């Protein structure tokens, strides 16, 4: 057909382009949007013990969450842990990412591998490793006690600190790799220009490097914050049964209590809070530096 022949070689037509988008669109729709819609509908249903889920249109589940101090405590703890993890990831990750981005070393690829390596170990496996290391008779405490540094084991396991450390370890690679790619795009000469104009390193970083790395900082913060808010294996294994966060709460509400309406509500609250805080932090960072 003539009109087909007129199209430059290698330039896909509109139909082809649309065709390429179809599989991903279907996947997102069926795999993500539809379940979320169903979940939201469930969260408006009523729960009757013995009969489980009963069709209804009520906000009772949300009211229950926001009026019960226990659940509010869980939400607050989750946010606190996620914020702490994100801040530490940024503080520790930035220098690491900077070195990685600026190194002239031949072993740069190796360094990147070392950063990525933790991701090769699953969350649960790694958390189990932390349990062995940080238990009251674990590697760290036995070593310290053996050397006479301490006489009573330090309580690390089943504390908030253990969870924070665990999540930082999981999320650090995401932060570092995101920052690294953005810092690599910043002209080294721009930093040198700042130095030559009289800016000491910290001033240079605050006035030039951070503002220019802002897209990376935003992406890294969003990524690590979302991952930390939704962490499951790490809080369960390192926090212990009393240390409830939102991720495990969703699971136990669904799987152990079989309370699908309330589980749906908890899921939606987690999702919404994550979204709101992400947007808020983005706006805050953007306003601070741009």
């Amino acid at each position, binding site marked *: 057909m003539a009109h087909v022949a007129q199209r430059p070689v290698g330039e896909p037509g509109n139909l082809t382009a649309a065709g390429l988008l179809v599989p991903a669109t279907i996947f997102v729709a069926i795999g993500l949007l539809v379940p979320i819609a169903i979940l939201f509908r469930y969260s408006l249903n009523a729960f009757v013990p013995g009969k489980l889920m009963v069709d209804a249109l009520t906000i009772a589940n949300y009211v229950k969450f926001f009026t019960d101090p226990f659940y509010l405590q869980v939400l607050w703890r989750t946010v606190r842990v996620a914020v702490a993890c994100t801040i530490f990831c940024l503080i520790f990750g930035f220098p690491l990412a900077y070195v990685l981005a600026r190194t002239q070393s031949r072993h740069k690829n190796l360094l990147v591998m070392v950063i990525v390596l933790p991701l090769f170990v699953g969350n649960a496996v790694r958390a189990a490793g932390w349990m062995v290391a940080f238990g009251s008779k674990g590697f760290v405490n036995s070593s310290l006690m053996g050397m006479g540094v301490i006489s009573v084991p330090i309580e690390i396991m089943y504390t908030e600190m253990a969870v924070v450390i665990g999540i930082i370890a999981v999320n650090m690679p995401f932060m570092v790799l995101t920052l690294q790619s953005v810092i690599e795009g910043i002209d080294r000469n721009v930093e*040198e*220009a700042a*130095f*030559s104009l*009289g800016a000491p390193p910290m001033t240079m970083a605050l006035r030039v490097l951070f*503002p220019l790395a802002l897209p990376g900082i935003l992406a890294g913060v969003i990524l690590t914050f979302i991952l930390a808010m939704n962490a499951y294996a790490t809080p369960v294994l390192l926090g212990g049964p009393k240390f409830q966060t939102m991720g495990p709460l969703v699971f136990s509400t669904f799987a152990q209590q079989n309370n699908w309406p309330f589980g749906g509500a908890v899921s939606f609250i987690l999702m919404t809070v994550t979204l709101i805080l992400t947007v808020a932090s983005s706006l805050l960072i953007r306003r601070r530096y741009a």
Partner: protein
Amino acid sequence: MASLTLHGLTKSYGDVAVVKSVSLEVRDGEFLVLLGPSGCGKTTTLRMIAGFVPPSGGSICIGDQDITSLPPWKRNAGLVFQSYALFPHMTVAQNVAFGLEMRKASRTEIVPRVAEALRLVRLDGYSERYPRQLSGGQQQRVALARALVIRPDVLLLDEPLSNLDAKLRLQVRLEIRALQQQTGLTTVMVTHDQEEALTMADRLVVMSDGAVRQLGTQSDLYERPADLFVAGFVGRSTMITGIVTASGAFRSDGGLVLTCPATALQGPATIALRPERLTLGPAAQGLDNHAPGTVSFVSYLGAMLDVHVRLNATDHVMVQIPNRSDGLTPAVGDAIEVGWPASACLVFPREAA
């Protein structure tokens, strides 16, 4: 305003010496150009002056003050980069004000000085634009204003024109030179472009393999090159290899016997000839050296012609003659007489190359 003195400045990475004991003095208000092929150590030298590369040995002084161990932010050197290196998230005015803010200047001082610097580079009215909204030439002028506004002791230019297109390069070249003379700033520029170097510099330094080959004015380098490298690098020359048989006498590998200036040199040598010092045709007969040859190639340069003349199996010379309309244009294959005075012969010991 101050002079800049490098003394035995050296940089090695492991066993590799990139800059080998460079000593030179840039006089107060002088425009010095470091010229050399890529990898000759000129950029490393400039970066040592700026403070980005710690020297392995030697010292750097501005005036009487030894700045060798000072970090870049305490050196008061204005830097202009090939890539402009403007702060992309700041306006033109903020870029220029940056150095003054670092010096804790007051707002009432910063505003007029920024305006003055921008007027100097003819960019007043652009102060609220962002660098991405400017052309390459304008960006480089902002970079220049940013470096000048801090009233640096020395101005360092790292291939500042290389990213500009040919026409703009000429214009910015003149502007930089005019600004430098106007402000009387001691300036060091690095370039590999010899035309740029020759037109801008007060004095030039030719470097190769990390060492200074010659320091001098344009005519020093062109008419009295210190060695064969400088003779080959600055301007054009044709080389004739042979031996110095006696003081003032030279025999080429192709058997030409030539008269050259008296020299203490003995043995294997190379003569460099500047193409415009050679004469073609009957007039060549009266000169110290003359030989018959065959035109092998003619290139047309507009105002000038380059005529390549083969003298024998090994020797050939390049002659530059004015392009005249009198029909005396040599053609390939013509038999022709070439001549040059003894003083045109620059004699150098043959280098292991």
